[in-house]
């Protein structure tokens, strides 16, 4: 695994941290931490894009974020997860990943 994929892992993990922070932050220093995590997250997102196709990086980022928030709803916030909701989230994410990956072809076409 090359180091750019490690950046992808870091950016996905940090994304989960700030999404969780958004739902739970209460004091000013919580917010300072959340904003710091967002900035570091986007730094690693940009770093990952230096060595990997941008579309692939964003497709993974969006896919992991969607699965992560579903799991968070289920395990941390005791939200109801019905099959119909999961189905439409899946359809939506399939569309996002399809578009992101098609960006890679456009990039190659330009080079």
């Amino acid at each position, binding site marked *: 695994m090359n180091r750019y994929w490690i950046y992808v892992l870091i950016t996905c993990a940090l994304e989960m941290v700030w*999404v969780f922070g958004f739902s739970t932050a209460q004091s000013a220093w919580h917010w300072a931490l959340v904003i710091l995590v967002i900035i570091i997250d986007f730094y690693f997102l940009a770093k990952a894009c230096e060595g990997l196709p941008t579309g692939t990086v964003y497709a993974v980022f969006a896919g992991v974020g969607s699965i992560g*928030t579903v799991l968070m709803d289920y395990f941390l916030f005791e939200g109801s997860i019905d099959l*119909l*909701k999961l189905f*439409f*989230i899946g359809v939506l994410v399939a*569309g*996002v990943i*399809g*578009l992101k990956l098609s960006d890679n072809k456009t990039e190659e076409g330009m080079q």
Partner: protein
Amino acid sequence: MGWLFVTFAAISEIVGVIGLKLFSTKKNLKTGALFLGGFGMSFFLLYQAFSYLQLSIAYAVWIGIGTAGAVVINMVFFGESRNGSRVFSLMLIIVGVIGLKLVS
């Protein structure tokens, strides 16, 4: 209310992405404000949406509208390809968003 917030959060994100593009070629106050203001606004509105909608739904719709909107803008104004697979992906996003709106 939550749906309004998440829609405007996605639109702000697109503004931020356009700002980032402009800022990377021409660094001045206007492009910088568009870039930082767009992303700042997007996160603020997403946070507002989280207090009305389930986390997973707000997140998926945010990323869906943001991605679809950016692609449509690129197709309409910057002449990006409109091939079948991209249009199909766009339709999947639209079906997903409408479906989620109906079941939640």
